């Protein structure tokens, strides 16, 4: 299943580590504090555990949103034109 992971964390060090952990799990950055990608069930559980460990060390929160197959088809990306 695909997931969107967003976070809001004040401490630079912890925030960076959250981002690095997302990349370790194969997620791709889509905005400054949001990552997206496929997470099979066991990997999702591992990632949640890793995030819980990080959140114990600083203030903030992480939200993981599952994105179902049907929803994925409806994703819209609007962007200001480059240049």
């Amino acid at each position, binding site marked *: 299943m695909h997931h969107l992971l967003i976070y809001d964390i004040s401490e630079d060090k912890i925030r960076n580590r959250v981002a690095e952990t997302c990349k370790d*799990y*194969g997620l791709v950055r889509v905005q400054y504090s949001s990552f997206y990608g496929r997470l099979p069930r066991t990997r999702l559980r591992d990632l949640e555990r890793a995030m819980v460990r990080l959140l114990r060390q600083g203030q903030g929160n992480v939200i993981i949103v599952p994105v179902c197959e049907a929803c994925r088809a409806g994703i819209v990306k609007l962007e200001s034109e480059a240049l």
Partner: protein
Amino acid sequence: MPSLIVDEHGVSIGKTSKRLVVKKRGEVVGEYPVLDVEDVVVLSRGVAITSDALELCSEHGVLVHFTDYRHQPYAVLYAPGLHGTVKTRREQFAALGDRRGVQAVKGFLVGKLDNQVNTLKYFLRGVEDARLHREVELAIAEIGRHRQRLIELDGACLEEVRPDLLNAEALAAQAYWRGVAALLRDRVAFPGRQVWDPTDPVNLMLNYGYGLLGSVVMGGILRAGLDPYGGFLHTDRSGRESLRFDLMEEFRPLVDRVIVALLRRGLKPRLVEEEGRISLERETRRLLKERLLERFDQRELYNGQRHRLKTIIQLQARALASFLRDGKPYRPFRGKW
């Protein structure tokens, strides 16, 4: 899961967090989460890999294969404590002296011959030329006769029948390569199969393909807890991974098919000479690698389930281990055609 394959000079593999980072001339060309990497294959000289990257790989059961200019693996790094049981190895060595060794080798070779026949038959479907058709059919028929001989061969231990097994295999191989040569006749010069230091494109491509196959097979052997050096058909020789060669046999014709298909569809392989050695030109090598990896990723039916070919190779290694350990019959893999 994919293999991370590095086949260029001057590339370095390091780690950041839990990702393998590939750099070329100091610039990052790719980052790969170790969770997504099955193994790392270093196909070229002049590649650097840090101890941190190696540690990360070992911790996650990722094997690191190094191959020489012939694409023969010369070293594999893996975590010493990660694989199967002592029992598997004890039985593997015991089987060398009893009937199980004979059965295993018959399995590998019958599988190989069946897949050779399938490969030839596959191309035969597209052949219109009547003479060529007959030639290939003759080769198929001859392989069939040697297959029958293989099946009839039996003995209390390998020592008794190894020469006969090898003989049947060699004769079948001759017929097979004649068939392949006929299929390639109007495309590219193929002097017949040459293992050592070939200078023609077809043999170079075959060696490259078997090199890749060998690394997948090696991964399976190590993960199944088998000893790569204790071969059955291929006898012990210091430093030779005989079991890897044994287990490769039934899969070789699948690699052949990819190469013959490329050539019959009109690929003009190019060669380069560097340091007095003839090898495949980079673009040819890239295309070949791409096709082979695609093939390894294709799913096929295996024990009622669809698996990727490279998973099947690993499952065959495990099937061999459980044949030796628990006596479950070993059935060679026959690719679809």
